[in-house]
């Protein structure tokens, strides 16, 4: 008998208990600690911080544990916690030029000032399952040392940015909000957590949206732009990952105070040029920034950011990745997972409304068919 959705309190409590049991798994296997997730599942933690829009690795690791490794669910946990936190200060803009770099590559120049730093990357691994890991070998790799960082934090001069070098030559615009640059740059930065979305959206709001957007969604959109649905001819000008300092400037002090370091990934894409017979041609650019080490995310983000500049650059808007309202209103996986999954909730009242109508429409048609046959037989 179908009364399960009328289960009520007992059923909910049972569901929670079953979930807790399954989370724990076989009791004879040692329980995962949050610290282990934090240390050994760091890319999961970083993705959750990025989409959860909260830089707190320990809480993100806790969320991953609580969500049994479901990263979208973990993101939701973190987001729901984040929304209860008081807003004490706005940080000052983070200076990624001053990043203490662990990885930094450019695909546009063979060598760049400061050099290419491969850092920790899957890029040139052969994707062969490492059975040694399963057997517990290689659990302590020979340390190359975390000291292999470059840039300011290491007492070296900051690593100049490839895009700045191009900008000095006038080959790309200085970063801005697009369109009427100076006017828009003078506005206070938008806040997608405090203001409902409105369209058209300025670039600051778009970038905030993309920064916490679902990686899979951005990946697919960025990919579609590469395959010709709104091609923007991208080159990875620079990708860097490392530690950046976060500062605030409390009113009562009136000077900057550094409150800590965060790990961040950044991608600057050099994209198709604009210009005309008379106007000096210049490359355009796309930007991606993320908490933690989320390289694929920032690459995809920078492609989509560039696609979304179509309006300001006077390009045709005919590909999904260029469609601002489409991209921005569907990028958030906390929203998307909720609305898709709410189909699990009972809808039997509305379904009954459709059933009543469809049955009566069928009855009407069948009645007409019968009376038609009867008329024909009588004739």
């Amino acid at each position, binding site marked *: 008998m179908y009364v399960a959705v009328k289960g009520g309190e007992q059923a909910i409590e049972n569901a929670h208990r079953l979930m807790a049991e399954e989370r724990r798994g076989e009791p004879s296997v040692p329980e995962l600690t949050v610290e282990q997730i934090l240390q050994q599942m760091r890319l999961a933690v970083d993705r959750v911080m990025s989409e959860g829009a909260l830089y707190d690795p320990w809480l993100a690791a806790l969320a991953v544990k609580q969500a049994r490794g479901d990263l979208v669910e973990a993101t939701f946990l973190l987001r729901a916690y984040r929304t209860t936190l008081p807003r004490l200060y706005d940080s000052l803009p983070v200076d990624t030029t001053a990043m203490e770099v662990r990885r930094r590559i450019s695909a546009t120049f063979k060598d760049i000032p400061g050099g290419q730093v491969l850092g920790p990357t899957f890029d040139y691994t052969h994707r062969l399952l490492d059975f040694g890991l399963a057997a517990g070998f290689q659990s302590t790799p020979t340390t190359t040392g975390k000291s292999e960082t470059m840039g300011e934090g290491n007492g070296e001069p900051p690593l100049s940015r490839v895009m700045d070098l191009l900008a000095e030559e006038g080959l790309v615009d200085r970063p801005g909000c697009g369109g009427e640059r100076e006017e828009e740059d003078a506005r206070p930065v938008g806040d997608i957590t405090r203001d409902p979305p409105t369209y058209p959206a300025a670039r600051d709001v778009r970038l905030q949206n993309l920064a916490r957007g679902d990686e899979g969604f951005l990946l697919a959109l960025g990919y579609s732009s590469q395959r010709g649905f709104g091609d923007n001819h991208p080159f990875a000008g620079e990708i860097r990952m490392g530690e950046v300092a976060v500062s605030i400037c409390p009113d009562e002090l009136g000077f900057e105070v550094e409150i800590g370091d965060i790990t961040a990934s950044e991608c600057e894409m050099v994209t198709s040029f604009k210009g005309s017979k008379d106007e000096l041609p210049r490359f355009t650019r796309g930007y991606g920034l993320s908490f933690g080490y989320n390289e694929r995310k920032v690459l995809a983000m920078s492609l989509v950011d560039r696609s979304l500049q179509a309006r300001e650059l006077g390009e045709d808007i005919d590909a999904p990745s260029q469609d601002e309202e489409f991209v921005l209103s569907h990028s958030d996986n906390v929203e998307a997972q909720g609305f898709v999954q709410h189909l699990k909730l009972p809808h039997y009242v509305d379904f009954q409304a459709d059933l009543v109508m469809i049955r009566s*429409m069928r009855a009407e048609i069948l009645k007409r068919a019968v009376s038609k046959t009867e008329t024909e037989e009588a004739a």
Partner: protein
Amino acid sequence: MTAATQTPPAVEAGYNYGYLNEQTKRMIRRAILKAVAIPGYQVPFAGREMPMPYGWGTGGIQLSASILGPEDVFKVIDQGADDTTNAVSIRKFFAKVTGVKTTERTGDATVIQTRHRIPETPLKDGQIMVYQVPIPEPLRWVEPREIETRTMHALEEYGVMHVQLYEDIARHGRIATNFMYPVKVNGRYIMSPSPIPKFDNPKLDNSPALHIFGAGREKRIYAIPPHTEVRSLDFEDYPFEVETWDGCCALCGATDSYLDEVILNDSGERMFVCSDTDYCATRRGQGHTGPMADREDISELTGDKPETQDKTA
């Protein structure tokens, strides 16, 4: 849980009254006031993430959280029923974060949060209905872009809605919208009544209660103030009609209520039963009985038998 009004234990420690902080509640109350001042107009608001998923009623929950006070008596229904899992969950949440008294009786409630139904018992002056809204925009299925639909509302460019209804008639011989049936409020804005069946639409017209609608994911709030004209869209020759059933409620015999269909067994035996559990229980309490009221195998539906322990949702 019995139908009696329950006083839960004290408010959850560590959280503000009503879960949301006071600034957020004030922001939402302002949006509600604006919505009341412009009946049927969708007011954008800075919706917050809630500790339950979007789609589970976060819009309605934020509204309730912003208006509930210590004197209120709160009722939550989903599909008309107080005992559906999500209604139980939301009621429990508010009992925890506000300590508000809860009830299953429509007449005793000051605030009723609902998903997909309006109670059968007529609403009274002073009551507030809070609706959980998935898609607040009635024009969405005609035009998916917000930038367009806001302009259409501003210019009262609603012809396309009638065209859609006309297309239904041309194709199916009737208007084929059965729930979320669009209404015109106070002669001005076309509004989605949320996914209530059109059966409930007439209850909105000149209702003595205040109706407020919250869409959390879409970040919109709108309202129908008490005693406001609410017309369901139709044509003179194809007037608005509500659904009817051949039979009555199998448990209480009501012929005037919205019925749920329940499939009883693999041989396809089915019954129709009031979707409004409070209405049904009240009628049975008054001695009304339907044709299947005495059947043993459906006693779980009447609440006569306690739930089995190992049932899962």
